[in-house]
């Protein structure tokens, strides 16, 4: 074991690293500036367990109704060897619908990585659909296997990632939050698929950055396909994975002896976590299991109120500081001159208006 691997194992405690999937990898891009998260995720710490242990359990439950519905829709779309799926994808891509396509289910076997690699890189141009390919990515120096519920479609010599999601597209529109979550997850697959091709000496560009999203249309079960361009998400992802690959730089900012081992004493854990810099923002609530802890820690910070609020307050960090500057009770730092003047004027106007002066 290398020093780094040794160190990460210590941080994680005596457990194997938590498994990643496309969702957790996609989540890595959520708050790229946060060292705490980058370190914990690099080490593969079980963050849900950690959060629970320190008294701030995450709330990322999933309703079984949603899961059932998702599985049923996926099964329906993939039925009959993917005939319907092939038509949808081809029509959406604007290529002639092939008379037929091979359907290879890469799921369920022991030697899946090998099978997936062989199948996807085998020479051939014909229309082909590959279900459940096993893909891999390097995350913080560790090989992570992805088992996507995904179809890779080879059409006209190019590969397209096909994502089947059960949220509806109504009159051509879907919930934007769900679409952007799907886009970043698909980008993970595109990246992994490209890596697989290039490792085998193939051309990674054969994997299109245009992903086909298949969703139920309107209020029916009928599938409809849309195209999602994930070029931007690929860049973001690449950048964060590169950052995590330089794990030694990240670890340099972490005090020696730091551990997030969920078996440790909760008070000690809270103490330890606070020694690694975080960058809490309200977005964390939807993206990171530690959010309630970090929010608690960030109380009294303007960042906890959201970026627009912080900016409107002249970028001043602390709520106390804001109020002291506004009241003129505190001399501004040199770079705070403008912010302080604005805050004083705001405080005066607010008081004036609350006292009933005219509009």
């Amino acid at each position, binding site marked *: 074991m290398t020093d780094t691997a040794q160190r990460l194992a210590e941080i994680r405690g005596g457990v194997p690293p938590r498994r990643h999937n496309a969702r957790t990898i996609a989540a890595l891009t959520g708050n790229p500036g946060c060292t705490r998260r980058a370190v914990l995720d690099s080490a593969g710490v079980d963050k849900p367990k950690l959060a629970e242990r320190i008294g701030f359990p995450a709330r990322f439950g999933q309703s079984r109704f949603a899961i059932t519905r998702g599985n049923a829709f996926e099964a329906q779309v993939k039925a009959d060897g993917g005939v319907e799926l092939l038509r949808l994808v081809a029509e959406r891509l604007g290529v002639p619908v092939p008379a037929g396509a091979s359907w290879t289910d890469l799921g369920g076997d022991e030697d899946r990585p090998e099978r997936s690699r062989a199948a996807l890189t085998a020479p051939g141009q014909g229309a082909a659909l590959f279900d459940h390919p096993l893909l891999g990515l390097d995350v913080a120096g560790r090989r992570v296997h992805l088992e996507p519920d995904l179809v890779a479609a080879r059409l006209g010599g190019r590969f397209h990632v096909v994502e089947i999601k059960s*949220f509806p597209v109504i009159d051509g529109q879907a919930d934007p939050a769900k679409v952007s979550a799907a886009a970043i997850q698909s980008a993970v697959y595109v990246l992994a698929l490209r890596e697989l091709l290039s490792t085998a000496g193939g051309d990674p560009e054969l994997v299109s950055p245009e992903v086909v999203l298949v969703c139920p249309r309107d209020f029916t079960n009928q599938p409809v396909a849309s195209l999602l361009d994930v070029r931007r998400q690929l860049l973001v992802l690449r950048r964060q994975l590169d950052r995590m690959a330089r794990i030694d730089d990240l670890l340099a900012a972490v005090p020696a002896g730091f551990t997030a081992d969920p078996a440790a004493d909760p008070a000690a854990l809270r103490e330890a976590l606070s020694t690694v810099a975080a960058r809490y923002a309200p977005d964390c609530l939807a993206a990171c299991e530690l959010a309630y802890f970090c929010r608690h820690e960030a109380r009294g910070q303007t960042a906890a109120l959201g970026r*627009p609020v912080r900016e409107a307050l002249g970028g001043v960090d602390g709520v106390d500081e804001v109020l002291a500057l*506004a009241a003129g009770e505190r001399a501004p730092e040199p770079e705070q001159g403008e912010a302080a003047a604005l805050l004083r004027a705001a405080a005066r106007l*607010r008081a004036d208006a609350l006292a009933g002066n005219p*509009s």
Partner: protein
Amino acid sequence: MSTLRALAKAQAVAAGVAQPVATVRHLHLSDRPLVLVPLAMAGEANAPLAALVGAAPDEARLLVVPQPRNREQRLAFAAELAEAVLPHLESFRGVSEAVPVDRGRDVRYRYVDAPQLIVPNPAGITFLRLLGRSTRFRRPDGEYPVHPSVPLLGRWLTFFAERAEHPGSAALVALTEALTLHWATGQSAVEDLHLPALLGWLDPPPGTTGAEAAARAEDPQTCPPAGPATDPDFDNHRLAPAMAAYAEAEDDPVARAEAYAELERLLRGQLEPTWELMWRGLGLLRALPPGARVAGRWAGDRDAFTGYAEHVDAGGGPQPRRDGAVAAAVRLHRLERALASYAVQRAYDDPLVMAEHRLTGEAFVGDVTLADPKRVDDSGKRPVLRPRIQVVTTEPVLVPVGATLYSPARPAQKAKVVFVTPAADGKTEVVLELSGGMGRGLTAPPGSVPEVGERLCLTTLSDAYLPAGNFPAPEETPWTHGGPPAEAV
């Protein structure tokens, strides 16, 4: 986010309770608002699960869909909701008033009051919009006939959802938005979408801070979410078994009735806390005096209600799935104008909102130190009354000479900036020439010209009527811009 509002948020953190960002209420509140708390089934495309609906705290009517994946039951829900909503709408169609149009040459009629729907949050509005979309094209005849009230409900829900996009409309209101328009909490905008947490900040129980109350409200075990999404734990551990019990009891009427009662009990338990919060929130809003221009905006909602009721009476069809190109451009233009005028009206009605504009230099407050109310300008063909006043302010004056200012105290009057002179102690003297709002003669009626000693707010914001843009009629639209749109079906 304006700095003034952001500062109020910082003050809320320090005080442990929400802080006002308005001194008057900026939306109309009906005496009998129809409160609607919907729940949707997770994973489905807007499948209703349950709702509480009613126009008074003790009039909650519970609607339940025991098997939301079942189409018939979803439509039965729509029919039942129609029974609760349509008579409520109808009850506002009694008395009309005449409104002069075309400079008094003609009159039209509008209802003296209109219905108002209140849901907990913006997601509740989306729910109604999609419910409207999924029901308004249904037919009482043909292959899958539905009760005639179902498509009618769909059209009305669509009407309300479209009104909700109109800035300043109070026809369909998300309570969280209405509340944050008037108070700033010590939490972020995302957290403010959660009605229980928001009310925790607005009205924390005695001995608790807003932050503590909000944190407690976030625990779905103690405080169910305000919908339409349900708590996944509730789904998995309580709702799913109860639904399964209902499904299994298919052939046993007694067991089925029991299972239904259990579902009702569970869903009522999820909805009732929100129901209480809805009325508490409305109570907080009601305690604020309405702004002066609220009634005018509500008249716009009454107009829209009257218009749509007449459209339905005349056998008009449901709203199209998507607007044609011209209709979309017209609508966008209308919304933009409404947004601008709504912002100005709120500032005119409320010194605390105007303060946001004072901070950015769009307005200032000063004292009138000189006034010449009799001044007549006879340099033109005809002498005209052009009083001048001098206002002294301590605020920065960013407006250039020649600019036209307005004062909310006399909105019909224009004040042209003649001189801006720095004075002692960092004050600024501004000389203004007044026109308008003083009758037709050469003598200003008393009170129409500000007097020495009056404290005055002057602003570049104008509440004057903005002319509508010109758009081609549908039949004149070139095909490149969507062509003559298809007839609405």
